[in-house]
């Protein structure tokens, strides 16, 4: 009998036990640093962490021949308070809703001027991706422009004071969806999965990831950078400010989102799911909701078990849809070629 070894639930912990070629970029003291320390992100910011991992991996994958396009949002604001800049890579910010189109323009320019060894990575928050940026993004996908677009999803407009976005989950309390009167917070809509929308464009590569598994995130960036055409990575990044979670809990909250089934982690190529990260120890959605004050109203007094049950239903649907629980014979064994083998230990 074997059990999977995980100390804090992420492969990052096992870095020293891994062969050097399997180690995360971030484990090396020699790593590049796309975004330097000293920026103005909040403590515990999931987006700052994800952006560093994504850009360092992309930069390494492109041997430093890389240009970054950034949408308006927290990441842009906290990294470039004039006259300072935290960016060590060429970086362009234009507007909130146009990062994909700007990146398409950069990519076209590099191709037209014979410098297409330089790769293009665009990044935006969920607002700049699923809401105001969606038109441009869909165009970039449909034309299969040579851009890797990364969405750092913190499920709301945090930069402007935590308003609801199209990526805000149902029942979350935000500055525009307060649970007052009979309201349960953000209404239960149909939801809007940008990864699935990206897949509908049948682009070469779509992946989701979280900051709970940086090695996985890094591997997906490396995979994406090994390809050309339109590629999309959607990263869940907890926001202590907007979610009301402890700043030290960012990684744990992200992991609970995965383990509850609320945030499926998977890869897709040309519109078909090719791999999904199975849940090793499923948790009820309540475990994910409770550490976040944006869901407090669901547990106050008699609570709203009906709403929690509705959220559990959504998690269960994800688990069924992506096959997140059972051993997945359908998953190709090479679905995540960059992943390290799970650490296994013989138990006596």
């Amino acid at each position: 009998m074997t059990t999977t070894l995980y100390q804090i639930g992420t492969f990052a912990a096992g870095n020293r036990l891994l062969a050097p070629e399997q180690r995360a970029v971030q484990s090396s003291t020699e790593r590049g640093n796309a975004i330097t320390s000293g920026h103005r992100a909040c403590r515990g910011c999931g987006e700052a962490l994800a952006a560093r991992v994504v850009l360092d991996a992309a930069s390494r994958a492109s041997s430093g021949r890389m240009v970054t396009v950034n949408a308006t949002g927290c990441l842009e604001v906290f990294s470039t308070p004039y006259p300072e800049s935290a960016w060590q890579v060429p970086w362009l910010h234009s507007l909130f809703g146009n990062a994909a189109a700007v990146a398409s323009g950069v990519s076209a320019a590099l191709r037209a001027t014979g410098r297409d060894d330089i790769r293009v990575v665009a990044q935006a928050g969920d607002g700049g991706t699923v809401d105001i940026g969606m038109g441009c993004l869909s165009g970039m996908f449909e034309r299969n422009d040579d851009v890797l677009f990364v969405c750092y999803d913190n499920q709301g407009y945090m930069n402007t004071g935590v308003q609801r976005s199209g990526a805000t989950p149902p029942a979350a309390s935000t500055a525009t969806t307060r649970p007052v009167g009979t309201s349960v917070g953000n209404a239960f809509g149909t939801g809007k999965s940008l990864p699935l929308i990206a897949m509908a464009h049948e682009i070469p590569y779509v992946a989701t990831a979280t900051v709970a598994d940086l090695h996985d995130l890094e591997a997906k960036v490396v995979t994406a950078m090994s390809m050309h055409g339109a590629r999309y990575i959607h990263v869940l990044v907890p926001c202590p400010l907007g979610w009301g979670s402890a700043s030290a809990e960012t990684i744990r909250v992200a992991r609970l989102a995965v383990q509850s089934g609320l945030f499926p982690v998977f890869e897709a190529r040309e519109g078909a799911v090719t791999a999904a990260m199975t849940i090793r120890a499923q948790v009820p959605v309540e475990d994910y909701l409770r550490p976040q004050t944006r869901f407090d109203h669901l547990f106050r007094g008699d609570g709203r078990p009906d709403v929690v049950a509705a959220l559990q239903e959504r998690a269960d649907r994800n688990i069924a849809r992506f096959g997140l629980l059972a051993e997945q014979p359908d998953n190709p064994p090479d679905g995540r070629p960059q992943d390290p083998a799970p650490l296994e230990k013989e138990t006596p």
Partner: protein
Amino acid sequence: MLRQLEGSRAVAETVARCRPAVVAAYPISPQTHIVEALADLVTAGELASCEYLMVESEFGAMSACIGASAAGARAYTASASQGLLFMAEALPNASGLSLPIVMTVANRALGAPINIWNDHSDALSQRDAGWVQLFAASNQEAVDLHVQAFALAERLSLPVMVNMDGFVLTHAMEEVDVPEQDDVDAFLPPFQPRQWLDPDDPVTIGAMVGPGAFTEVKYLMADRQIRALDTVTEVAAEFRAAFGRDSGGLVRPYRTDDAEVVLVAMGSTLGSATDVVDDLRAEGVAVGLLGIGCYRPWPYDEVRAVLGGVPRVVVVNRAIAVGAGSVLGRDVRLSLPGGTTVVHDVVLGLGGRPVTRAGLRELVLDVLAGQVPDETLHFADLDREAVHRELAREAALEEAAR
């Protein structure tokens, strides 16, 4: 070589000879023939090493041009009317980032009511967007202005908008000399960006600037726009020397000496107005014409120099500032402080209503006969009966509601 060409085709061929590396566009009437012709030229390989992005919106078009220009490529787009407004958020961004993008605007009215025909309300609505705005009087000038626009944009590191009247010019077929490739190459050196997103020398473009430095950045922008006035004149002079044609420049005075009344206009109206001036002069009427070739930056000194001593000025406004009066007329008035010149602010030719020679002639004669007010905006081609009927109907409804 003179050829009989449609304006859009001539402009597309000229743009191609300016060798843009990236064209990003979204179709809208009456700009369509330009982007269709450019697509043909790219597909046929006549515009070598150019990437043509058929984007999902005008907002995407301008955004792609911003990205392309920041990546060090010569970038071009074209639009009109609602399309120009749809890219409005990106226009001050392009100018604020000092990106030398060139855009053709096939001037068209703004809705509602939706109207696809020519006036100047689209371009003038973007008056303060930080773009240099040039207006073409004919298709020959539209062609010449595009060659000048790329030179201007790159010399100033500022975006330039070339305005040509929708349908009236874009769809008119007339004789045009499209500059030869060698001559364009000699006039327009390859694009050398001031900075680009170079991985070997990383720059941060588009940082957030707070109250501590924002005013200074804006001051420098405004200063550069004013200095652009000299560059517009310079480039027009160089163009004349290279191509032997008078095109572009800030203003174009025509028979204004000793004029009793001077018409001020922009765009395709100028040709018709020139005919009217000649006809009336032949009849002994002392009338002149001032064409505005460069609307932004506004050539205060040149306008004042021409209009300063003129008794009466008639501004032909092809856009209105609802609730305030005119757009072009206000700039003209601001150029004539404390003088004795009487300015008649006239609205003509909105939404495709033709500005005819007969209409311009009548206007000049009415002004001289003292029949045109000088304090209020005067709608010269208005169906007064129709609006009075509607006003009466509204008044009756209000009365009945009381």
